[in-house]
């Protein structure tokens, strides 16, 4: 990039209390780019963005806006220079309307000094429309979902005419569908020329949208480079020195003895005839969208909501908890979603936070022994490798990961036999997540059963033994976690598919999986399985199996892509009736993504007939520059093409002549083997 960066940070240094948080960090942020800032908690990310946002002033170093040095003494300075920040904790006022929030602190007024409600509303509508956010500007923010509140926050930032948008963990509180919507919005903003500084713990997200990545560790810049050159493994290694393969160190300790048996449970809060069993030492995952009823199931089990029907049996005995006190008495623990507002006592240091659920254990005669309490505290701080500072500092000052471990310690101490974990790794860094996973393993090894609620689907699938998919308060599907894909989970949870079609897709996915895995292991490249969405005329990725050497690409399980520029899409199109395809081509302009994209319908029709002849299709960097792929059709029982598989990789590693390569043979053969598994009987050619 030869043009001038929007912002250039040079050797920024900043220290607090004699501790150097930033030890000379430099990076450049360009217009129209999504610049990801990565690093563990405490690596200096927050300090850096706060310098750019005018909250902190660097001790030394320069900040240049379009080549001109500026000093930001105050957040308002930063705002005046076009910097808008969306912090982790929302700054929307719940009791005001959307429009009032968007114009908070800078209400428009008429020449008479009276607030101009109409103008504010108009401007808000305009901003929302521009962002394609569908929220009523007159709605009171309190009534909106967390995701919508986040969008309001963004609308507010955008309406400030900002050129740089800083987003700190914007998806931490969002479910998958909401996340997708947000990411799409971020992409649109970048396309409109805004620079976006994006901070997230979710690497998959970063890999999906970022074009440039800066990694910080201990206040140093480890790397700052275009994403295209990076693999996820590398980034994780840079951040923590942990290999991504160790990301989910799942150890299963399920015993064949039920711990919790729930039958036909319903509550007034919308749990609808739910039945499931959790065995001793099992991690039972609840998947579903935010608001699907997962938390409500947990509330009922913990005695917070009264069941209106059904029964709960704990270790073979019927229980009717009327309050958490009773649930805790019987060995049930709950770690709430929002540990700050619902889990921790900021007026205590760690030991009282740990002992609070079982103070009786500290009694010596009629009095609690504070010395015993300290000992207990020290013991758990050691055991869970919580920072020793927790012994004397309020838990307010601990990192998110340490805070979470303090809450887990509470339930270890209270000897819970069944632990409900609601979003236990939300907003904590990779290292601390790993710690939480290890704790989960240790808990189950000790025969504790876990009900795990997580919107991080890869985590949910990797750490659970079985997963139930929840929608509208009902459990729609229970499966072994390793037999469920992220896509299936998403599809069931979102209700995107009709039941019948869902069954079909599930069957396809289940049967194809072993063979697709095999192919991935042979080729070490990313393998996709996709179907055609006829209604929308696009392709839908059923699964994406990343290879060891897989590189960043736009595809995503459950995501969609255009048909005309992808190997998969063209293969799927090739077996649709020609007349329909041609008519469809005529209706619209075929979008161009790279200079090799075929945009002319005659050429495309020729290509499709070639695919039918050869039995495979190619993508010659037609969708993304530097990425090539080869795809082959999968036939169903009736001989129709129902899906396609592809192998995708960077142009450098893919064979020069894909059409003649051994890889082609392997792909076509695997597709055929999948077809046979599905009941395809036709003789080969």
């Amino acid at each position, binding site marked *: 990039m030869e043009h001038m960066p929007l912002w250039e940070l040079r050797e920024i240094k900043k220290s*607090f*209390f*004699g*501790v150097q948080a930033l030890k000379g960090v430099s990076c450049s942020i360009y217009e129209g780019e999504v610049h990801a800032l990565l690093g*563990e*908690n*405490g690596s200096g990310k927050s300090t850096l963005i706060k310098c750019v946002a005018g909250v902190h002033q660097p001790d030394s170093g320069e900040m240049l806006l379009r080549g001109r040095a500026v000093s930001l003494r105050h957040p308002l300075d930063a705002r005046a220079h076009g910097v808008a920040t969306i912090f982790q904790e929302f700054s929307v006022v719940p009791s005001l309307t959307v429009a009032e929030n968007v114009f908070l602190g800078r209400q428009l007024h008429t020449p008479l000094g009276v607030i101009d409600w109409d103008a504010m509303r108009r401007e808000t509508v305009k901003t929302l429309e521009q962002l394609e956010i569908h929220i009523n500007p007159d709605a009171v923010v309190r009534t909106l979902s967390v995701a919508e509140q986040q969008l309001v926050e963004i609308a507010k930032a955008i309406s400030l005419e900002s050129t740089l948008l800083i987003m700190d963990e914007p998806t931490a509180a969002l479910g998958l569908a909401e996340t997708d919507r947000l990411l799409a919005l971020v992409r649109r903003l970048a396309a409109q020329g805004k620079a976006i500084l994006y901070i997230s713990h979710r690497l998959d997200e970063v890999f999906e949208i970022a074009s440039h990545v800066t990694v910080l560790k201990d206040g140093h810049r480890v790397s700052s480079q275009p994403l295209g050159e990076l693999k996820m493994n590398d980034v994780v290694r840079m951040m*923590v*020195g*942990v*290999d991504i393969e*160790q990301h989910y160190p799942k150890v299963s300790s399920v015993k064949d003895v039920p711990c919790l048996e729930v039958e036909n449970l319903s509550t007034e809060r919308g749990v609808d005839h739910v039945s499931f069993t959790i065995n001793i030492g099992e991690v039972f995952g609840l998947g579903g969208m935010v608001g699907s009823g997962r938390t409500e199931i947990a509330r009922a089990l*913990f005695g917070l909501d009264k069941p209106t029907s059904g029964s709960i049996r704990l270790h073979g005995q019927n229980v009717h908890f009327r*309050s*958490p*006190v009773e*649930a*805790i*008495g019987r060995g049930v623990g*709950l770690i*709430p979603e929002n540990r700050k*507002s*619902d*889990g*921790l*006592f*900021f*007026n*205590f240091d760690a030991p*009282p936070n740990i002992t*609070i*659920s079982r*103070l*009786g254990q500290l*009694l010596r005669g*009629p*009095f*609690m022994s*504070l010395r015993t309490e300290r000992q207990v505290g020290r013991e758990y701080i050691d055991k869970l*490798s919580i*920072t*020793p*500072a*927790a012994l004397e*500092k309020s838990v307010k*000052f*601990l*990192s998110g*990961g*340490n805070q979470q471990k303090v809450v887990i310690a*509470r339930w270890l101490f*209270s000897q819970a036999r069944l632990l409900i974990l609601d979003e236990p790794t939300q907003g904590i*860094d*990779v*290292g*601390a*997540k*790993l*710690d939480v996973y290890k704790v989960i393993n240790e808990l189950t090894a000790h025969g504790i059963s876990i009900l795990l609620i997580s919107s991080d689907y890869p985590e949910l699938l990797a750490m659970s033994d079985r997963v139930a998919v929840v929608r509208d308060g009902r459990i729609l599907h229970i499966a072994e976690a390793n037999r469920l894909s992220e896509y299936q989970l998403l599809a069931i949870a979102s209700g995107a598919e009709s039941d019948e079609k869902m069954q079909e897709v599930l069957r396809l996915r289940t049967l194809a999986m072993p063979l697709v895995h095999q192919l991935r292991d042979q080729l070490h490249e990313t393998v996709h399985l996709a179907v055609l969405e006829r209604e929308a005329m696009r392709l839908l990725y059923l699964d994406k199996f990343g290879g060891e050497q897989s590189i960043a690409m736009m595809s995503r399980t459950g995501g969609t892509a255009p048909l005309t520029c992808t190997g998969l899409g063209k293969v799927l199109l090739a077996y649709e009736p020609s007349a329909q395809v041609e008519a469809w081509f005529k209706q619209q302009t075929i979008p161009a993504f790279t200079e090799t994209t075929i945009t002319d319908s005659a050429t495309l029709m020729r290509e499709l007939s070639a695919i039918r002849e050869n039995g495979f299709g190619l993508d010659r960097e037609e969708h993304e520059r530097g990425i090539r792929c080869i795809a082959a059709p999968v036939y169903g029982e009736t001989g129709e093409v129902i899906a396609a598989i592809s192998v995708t990789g960077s142009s450098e590693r893919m064979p020069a002549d894909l059409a003649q390569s051994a890889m082609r043979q392997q792909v076509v053969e695997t597709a055929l083997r999948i077809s046979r598994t599905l009941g395809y009987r036709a003789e080969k050619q």
Partner: protein
Amino acid sequence: MTVITRILRSPAVGPLVALLLAVVIVSLSTNRFLTQQNLSNVALQVSPVAIAAIGATLVILTGGIDLSPGAIVALTSCTLAILTKNNDIPIVFSIPMVLLLGAGLGFVNGFFSTYGRIPSFIVTLASMSIYRGLAFLITSGSPIFSVSPDLEPLFYGDFVGLPMPFYYVVALYALTFVFLRYGIMGRAIYAVGGNEAAARLSGIRVNQTRMITFVLAGLTSAIAGVLTTARLDSGSPNYGVGTELQAIAAAVIGGASLAGGSGNIISTLFGALTVAVVQNGLNLNIVPASWQEITLGSIIVLAVGVDMWRASVSRRLGRIAALFMPAGNRQPEKAKGSP
């Protein structure tokens, strides 16, 4: 942490400094302050408020507020007078009865503000009016004098050279100190004030805890009522006016946070003494009552302000101190996953 910051951060330091400051200023302003007669007077005067301040502190620790102590003092005082004088009930029975009444009045406050879900400010604002109204009702508005000769020794009597109220105050504060520091219910009170939602999810009976603080507040106000009656040998619906403000002032000057969850009972005692010393000083200097009220209000604001200022000073000192620490100790806490 250095010695300086540790001392500065100790919760009892501020209130103690405030008390000493008040003593110094008052004794400079008049030579009648530091006399044995006056000091024992102050000690006697302060006892009802100091005891009512215990209950006020407990309620404040859970994040609530109780505006009814003054009215409970009046109602229990009148009831005690009526029971003892008009119904000839000996004080060994009538005193426990009014203590029970006080607890009951506190229970009503607690019930409406927890199970009734009305903010405690509103509930006790209303009960403040209702309880005092009841006191007027049962006495037809006129004080009852010469209640019983048995009452006087309770207040003016002494034991081993020290006045009786001294023992009540010390005993009740000691009891409360142990209750809060070593009792499960005491811990629950701090937990509820610190984070109600977390307390509920941790198996604390939040409503029950709140109820208990209100009942204890009613009880301590009733004890204050009995002492007031004994001191003046009379019951009057006009007793206890302003007790709630002085009790809350004692807690706040003692550093209790009105948001709940932080504060300690020994500091409340220092707070109560500070209020008493200032009032005594104003009396000795013949300052009109109106100015006394204004002074008390100003002190409350000052106390909260100083508390804020102290926190920021100790933070700053800590920052400076950190510069002189060996580098190894400087690192803040950091979570490290050991791969």
